[in-house]
């Protein structure tokens, strides 16, 4: 899945995206959510102003789509332990109240929006299931740290 052949301008746009935007995000889940946020919910098309200015709308769209799929498959293949660590890093970088964050994520399941179109349905299920489990693990840790105090 990671060995996708990219035409040259798309490859350049992809590398530009990696260097300028994605390298600043500290965790895999954060990168995945960032890439998913560049997709229009109504049309499914990706858009990134800076990338489109430097390349073209079409090239930027393709680069974002490829990066999104790769980020997704990377997170879906993480072990549960690594995903818990990654989710904790994302939670920390969000600077939100951890309790509220976990409660909201468990109720609204916003991570479902991070799933790209046309991915293997089993992988999509595994991803959603693993995030649910990682949230439950963090919740458990949070509850036991409350009890310890």
């Amino acid at each position, binding site marked *: *899945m990671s060995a996708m052949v990219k035409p040259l301008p798309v490859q350049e746009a992809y590398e530009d995206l990696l260097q300028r935007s994605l390298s600043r995000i500290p965790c895999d889940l954060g990168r995945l959510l960032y890439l998913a946020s560049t997709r229009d919910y109504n049309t499914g098309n990706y858009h990134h102003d800076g990338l489109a200015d430097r390349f073209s709308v079409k090239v930027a769209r393709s680069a974002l789509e490829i990066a999104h799929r790769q980020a997704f498959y990377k997170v*879906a*293949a993480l*072990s*549960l*332990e690594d995903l818990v660590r990654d989710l904790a890093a994302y939670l920390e970088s969000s600077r939100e109240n951890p309790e509220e964050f976990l409660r909201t994520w468990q109720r609204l399941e916003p991570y479902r929006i991070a799933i790209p179109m*046309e991915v*293997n*349905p*089993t*992988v*999509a*299920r*595994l991803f*959603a*299931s693993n995030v*649910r*489990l990682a949230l*439950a*693990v963090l919740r*458990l840790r949070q509850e036991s740290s409350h009890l310890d105090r």
Partner: protein
Amino acid sequence: MIGVGGALAGAIVLLLVLLAWMRAEASSKDSRSDWGASDQEQGESVESCSPEIVSQIFSAPDSKFISGLESPGLENLFRRERTAVALHWVQETSALIGKIMRRHLEASRLSADLEIAVEVRIFLQYARLKLYCGILFVLIGLLGPQRLAGTALYAERFIQRIGEGLAEFQLAAQLQEREGSESL
């Protein structure tokens, strides 16, 4: 002759298998309603899961990690979640085998010189894989996915091999048909 004891044991085994099947069906139905796109919406794509993903679904280290947290509630959730994903994988794999076979049949119709022995061998492989999926479905319902990692990976590799073989066959049949139409 089978004695009364033998018949009774057979009936109990059959009942257990039936129960496991029903349990597996129920969890896979739960997970089906959990995820939107139907098989029809997925189109005719013949993309299977990568071996890494299959290993991940049947992963023992994940199970160990959860056990280490010593929370029965979490362990139950893990078992439910992974069973549902594993059953979905089996159903998807079974559907994929069906799609590969349909494509093969379409290609066979175009082929000018069908070899009965090859066709029989392909059909037997198809039947074997379908049976394998059925058994795996029941075993996942009975034992949970973590004990079946080796079996699942074997099935995955087998499907990929058959898929590649059938794709080559299809290509050869198409080439043959093209050559035939050009020579007319």
